[in-house]
């Protein structure tokens, strides 16, 4: 097991090299010269030349690639071009609000979806199943933007139930701020979740062991909650755990609309202001988290499924 974990962690190296390569190609080769942006509207040509030198943009491409790689492995991303802040500091600060929003939203939506899909699986083929399935798909077919615009206007402004936007650090101060975006998150993710969970659960319901359980005289509910759920958890765990890395990145649009100073907002801002060091940092951070969590999902797999042994 330990060996497996170490080996998987070592896999980070090639993946980070790859991520660095993509980032490097996108931002150092294809993208343009950032100096004009950094110096503002009154920059002098001389100044731009000097800055290019200072940023290491005159170095040969391979040396620039090595710089990207170095930052990927040392986690030293330097400072943001636009805000001049230490990037690692920005990430640390941004992670808190992002997690305040995404974790509760994620937990609630996952649990809720699971409950709904179990219910739906119990009544499979019946009217309620069709209805819930249709609602899920219909809900998924509305643009996220429409939800955000409408919910914010209606619930926060018209009804005044929630804070309109902003964020306060510390529990429970942040609750009124994240409540509405969290609800939108839940609404957005319940559709695909239920759809997936339902498929997985139904896949299991038609397995032979369920017939055995019925032949044993177990009740349908007992079979669903014990036998089926336990087996369905295997794909569900993978599905759920692999979403976690994206929680850390926050919710781009939501954070932007609700002025939550999280990583999603930072990313969008960086993209809009060509703040390449921040974008690079976010990409690298996300791939590290992604690999780590796919490893965690594999390890959890062994707990859920006794057939899997990690070597």
């Amino acid at each position: 097991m330990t060996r497996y974990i170490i080996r998987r962690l070592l896999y980070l190296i090639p993946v980070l090299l790859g991520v660095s390569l993509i980032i490097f190609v996108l931002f150092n080769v294809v993208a343009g010269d950032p100096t004009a942006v950094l110096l503002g509207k009154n920059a002098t040509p001389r100044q731009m030349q000097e800055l290019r030198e200072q940023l290491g943009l005159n170095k040969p491409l391979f040396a620039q690639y090595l710089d990207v790689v170095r930052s990927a492995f040392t986690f030293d991303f330097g400072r943001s071009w636009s805000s001049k802040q230490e990037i690692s500091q920005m990430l640390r600060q941004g992670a808190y609000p992002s997690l305040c929003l995404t974790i509760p939203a994620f937990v609630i939506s996952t649990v809720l979806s699971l409950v709904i899909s179990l219910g739906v699986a119990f009544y499979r083929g019946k009217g309620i199943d069709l209805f819930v399935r249709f609602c899920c798909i219909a809900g998924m077919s509305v643009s996220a933007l429409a939800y955000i615009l409408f919910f914010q206007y209606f619930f926060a402004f018209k009804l005044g139930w929630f804070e309109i936007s902003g964020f306060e650090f510390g529990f429970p101060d942040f609750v009124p701020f994240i409540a509405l975006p969290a609800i939108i998150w839940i609404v957005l993710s319940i559709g695909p979740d239920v759809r997936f969970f339902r498929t997985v659960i139904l896949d299991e319901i038609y397995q032979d062991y369920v017939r055995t359980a019925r032949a044993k005289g177990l009740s349908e509910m007992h079979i669903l909650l014990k036998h089926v759920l336990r087996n369905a958890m295997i794909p569900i765990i993978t599905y759920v755990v692999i979403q976690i890395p994206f929680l850390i990145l926050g919710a781009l649009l939501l954070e932007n609309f609700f002025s939550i100073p999280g990583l999603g907002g930072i990313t969008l801002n960086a993209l809009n202001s060509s703040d390449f060091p921040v974008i690079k940092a976010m990409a690298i951070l996300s791939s590290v988290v992604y690999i780590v969590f796919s490893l965690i999902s594999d390890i959890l797999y062994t707990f859920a499924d006794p057939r899997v042994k990690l070597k």
Partner: protein
Amino acid sequence: MTTSPLLSVRNLVVDFHTSEGVTRAVNNVSFDIPAGKTIGIVGESGSGKSVTSLAVMGLLQKPAARVPQGEILLNGQDVLKFNDDQLRRIRGNQISMIFQEPMTSLNPVFKVGEQIAEALRVHKKISKKEAWEKTLHLMNQVGIPNPSASANKYPHEMSGGQKQRVMIAMAISCDPKLLIADEPTTALDVTIQKQVLDLLFRLQQEYHMSMMFITHDLGVIGDIADDVVVMYRSNVVEKNNAKHIFTTAQHPYTKGLLACRPKLGANPKRLLTVSDFMTETGEEKPVSLAKIEVFDKETVPDKSDEVLLEVNNLITQFPIKGGFFGRTVDHFKAVSDVSFKIKKGKTLGLVGESGCGKTTLGRSILRLVEPASGSIIYGGKDITHVYAEELRLLRRKMQIIFQDPYSSLNPRMTITEILTEPLNIHNIGASKTERIDMARALVDRVGLKVAQMNRYPHEFSGGQRQRICIARALMLKPEFVVCDESVSALDVSIQAQVLNLLLDLQEEFSLTYLFISHDLSVVNFIADEVGVMYAGKIIEMDKASRIYQNPKEEYTRTLLSAIPKGEVKSSLSSLVHK
């Protein structure tokens, strides 16, 4: 009879409603199971035997399956009228069931002990501890070694036979009055089959249960059934006392079933099949005596002494990955130092249980798997290390027929496409029409209708598909064919037809066969020489009759004793007697 039977099925009809229409799976079936008796239900796949058993358990898939008529009386109460709750109370408690596939019938994520105890806890209202103790006792009863350790195992950590024992333990845990066993041994190796059958028989006696034993192979239940019900195309065609069935079968279908199984001793030149006894429309037809004349292969003189294939010290191994970076740390020798020769026009049979390396051996000879060392000499030429064009040419001479007729045909190709493909690859035939003509001739030869050639594999039955596979293998007019468990997945009645076909073809095209099977009686029937394979080695090799009469190795004896003795009670002559 004075006492009412435990279970009485009366005029049962089961329909399946699908989007395609309504199919009748069970038509007006009636039979009784008296208390403490074993009844065998025999029929080929699709005959409605399993559906009947599911109906008894109340496990039919609603709403697709509907019962428009009939009753199933358990102690006089109609199970069909039970609500879910009542059904649940009888399931596992009064009636319990064992399924065909022990691999998938156990929940993979729970320990087997828990799964047995669960049934106890549901019906017996006992404490966890008591249930566990009872579980260990049951596991002991069904012959699982070291129950306290085994109970904590997960299903995948057990062999197929042990899993089936667990299923049995689960089924008998609540002392059911009726045990339904649906093909409980079909998926198991021959040696294990025998043990499981013995176990079931013993338990049935001990627990005074009634048993409903479902199988496609009459031979299997010869020893244990009191009564036999024969089903054919959704109907019961014959039911009688087991002894009578075996000695004085009435219905031609039953006779066919009895006759089609190859015997360990002498057999006729071709196996009798159901179609010898019965016309397409189900009418009985007379069987010519010539067909049952016993034929001794060894009396036929060898056509030539030419050795077609020679295998010397063949080793085929698979890497075992391990270590930090998944390097190959060791090798598993699937085929370990095997040598033999096959003469032209002869058949070498290879028997052994699953995992003994016989399949790998077959594929190594065809170079579908690369052997590690040793040599394969075909027609005097060492083919161990030929590649590319030479290997391609070799394919024209050596062919293979696989075990699973379902997965060995590409589901997206029509029969014509499948059969002309080898011709395309090897550029045989001048035009497309010529190739189709060649395919047509062979289709006709293997007993399929030429008109069906534009169909897709899923539109054919298992036996028909195996004929297609045979036709494909013969398209290139090979000299040598490996039959890898080619009849194992088929019902006995179909198996006989395919075996006959293989023999006919061998005669006609002077083929040489390497016939791989786990079933000694089949090998005995078809092969001139038999090799017994165990753990990658051939431990014994001799003329078929000598192996049968005078086995040298212990393992061979086990294999022999595992063959069901059902057929012993009947003889071919009795079947055609009338």
